């Protein structure tokens, strides 16, 4: 037997170096993304500021779904946490009078995380369609509770006031813009943390679990706990998205936790593809543009537009729009 023995010690630095390069490239891209957004926001008209804020906040939810989707799981009820985030903000403001943006955002995240930790014990046992539909069932329970209960605002929901930022109260003119900055900060931290997480050993388990869960178990990794962690992370991101949208829109209603909202998030996840942590925000941007034009040109066919584009995506672009970038990079490489 004189076949060459693979020497782990000699390949490990190479792998680490490649990972480091990848991380450096991601951080640079993130920096460019944030600087570009902030520069663009200075020249934006008011309506665009609002649109970009909502787009970024909803992109956060999709970023959470991307974590699950990379694991091979799809939640059809992510609006549960989106709704929880939003209602945590709305209810605290209404009943406790707290109007400070940072603490409201934190509250939205904490509320979503607590619920996710509890539900995660049940959901982590399920895969595929069971996981998807059970999530859907839970989100419908929240929707039902919100619609039925007067104290929670019933079908109309209620208004959310303009927030303060720490000790500072912005004028109404600058409030939207300040919220956009908060949103950019939240998105940047989200991208950074998820990127770091995916590069960690636990993060590398995401695709491994999707490919072959039993082998991962044989390697000694706790698959269910890993899925639980991802589920809670996804919920935290969704809670943050919901809280930010509540502040930006200034109104919350039960539709935020309805299945159509979840469906839109799933749609954007498929549209974007799971190729990169930036993909959700590209997908979210395309979605908001699509929706703006669809309500203008085909107001009664919005679901049709969604359904048909979802079909076309699944059939002809299964890895999402991000795969276009990937393909070009590969083609450019010698």
């Amino acid at each position: 037997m004189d076949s060459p023995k693979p020497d782990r010690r000699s390949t490990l630095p190479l792998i680490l170096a490649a990972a480091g390069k990848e991380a450096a490239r991601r951080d640079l891209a993130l920096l460019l993304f944030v600087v570009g957004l902030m520069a663009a926001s200075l020249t934006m008209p008011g309506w665009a500021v609002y649109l970009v804020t909502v787009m970024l906040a909803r992109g956060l939810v999709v970023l959470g779904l991307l974590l699950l989707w990379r694991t091979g799981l799809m939640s059809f009820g992510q609006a549960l946490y989106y709704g929880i985030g939003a209602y945590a903000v709305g209810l605290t403001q209404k009943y406790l009078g707290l109007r400070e943006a940072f603490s409201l955002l934190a509250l939205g995240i904490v509320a979503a995380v607590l619920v996710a930790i509890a539900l995660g014990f049940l959901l982590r046992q399920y895969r595929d369609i069971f996981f998807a539909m059970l999530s859907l069932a839970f989100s419908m329970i929240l929707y039902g509770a919100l619609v039925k209960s007067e104290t929670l605002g019933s079908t109309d929901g209620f208004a959310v006031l303009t927030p303060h930022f720490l000790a500072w109260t912005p004028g109404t003119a600058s409030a939207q813009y300040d919220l956009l900055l908060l949103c950019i900060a939240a998105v940047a931290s989200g991208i950074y943390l998820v990127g770091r997480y995916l590069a960690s050993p636990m993060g590398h388990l995401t695709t491994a679990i999707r490919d072959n869960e039993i082998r991962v178990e044989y390697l000694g990794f706790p698959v269910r706990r890993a899925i639980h962690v991802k589920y809670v992370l996804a919920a935290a991101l969704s809670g943050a998205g919901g809280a930010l949208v509540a502040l930006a829109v200034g109104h919350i209603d039960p539709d935020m936790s309805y299945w159509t909202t979840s469906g839109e998030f799933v749609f954007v996840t498929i549209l974007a593809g799971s190729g990169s942590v930036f993909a959700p925000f590209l997908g979210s941007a395309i979605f908001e543009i699509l929706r703006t034009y669809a309500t203008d040109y085909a107001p009664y066919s919005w679901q049709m537009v969604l359904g048909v584009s979802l079909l076309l995506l699944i059939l002809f672009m299964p890895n999402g729009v991000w795969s276009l970038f990937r393909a070009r990079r590969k083609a450019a490489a010698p």
Partner: protein
Amino acid sequence: MVTAVTIFVDGLVYAAWLFIVAVGLTLIFGVMKVLNVAHGGFYSMGAYAAAWSVGIYFDAGLAPAGSFLLLALSAVVVGVVLGLVLERGLLRFVYGRDDILVVLVTYAAFLILENLVLLIWGVDAYPAYQPSALLGSTAIAGLPFNNYELLLVVVAAAIGLALTWGLARTRLGKLLRAVIFDREMAVAFGIDVARLFTGTFVVGAILGALGGAVTAPTISVVPGIGVEVIVLAFAVVVIGGLGSVMGTILGALIVGLARAAAVHLLPEVELFVIYGVMSLVLILRPRGLFAQAQPRRI
């Protein structure tokens, strides 16, 4: 005592309705391993087609008894057309893809169907109370119960019997069970799985549309009725174990009686009781009551 009888009869009626609505979903899943979200679309299409045609029928002043035939007929037409179009035109191209992607394809089909309903019939409500009003009511323990709703129990029982008997005794049923048990082996033995798939899907679609059609006389048919149905039907079949007809009967009975009990004893929890029961069953038996244990394959 009266409350107990009321709960029992109400629960039975609701269970019958749940069974009719959910059995198509479980049949399609059992044979094809496709969770068909478009089932909700079949339901609303069936309801609208029935309500619309019954409305025209009574406006024309024809013999009232024929309207029952019309309910069944509209379900069959809707089911055959939609079933064929969806299975032959769409689903067969995605067999073998990731389960979730197949669900998403049916979800996309559901969105399109819901929008089609809106485009064809608009946003107005379609009442079709006549068949229900025609039958009058019966007094049970001194309380009047609508005969049409009691008829639903008979219809559900007939469907349940026909399906269990058909699966257990007929040649077609045996072929289907072979496919359910081991699809690859069935193909190897020369069973034409593609044709069985199309047939199953059409039957499932007819059952879904029938669920809508028989419901139309008891409700006001409005946009969005398909959504709740798909979530409810899923809860029922999950409790019983996806793919099992017996399980669906049991799941429908459990949910139906639990909901009726909640409505009469503690109305505030009505909405939670269904999902509460579902969560409880799943905690105790993660794959549902009647599901067989699945071997884990590497």
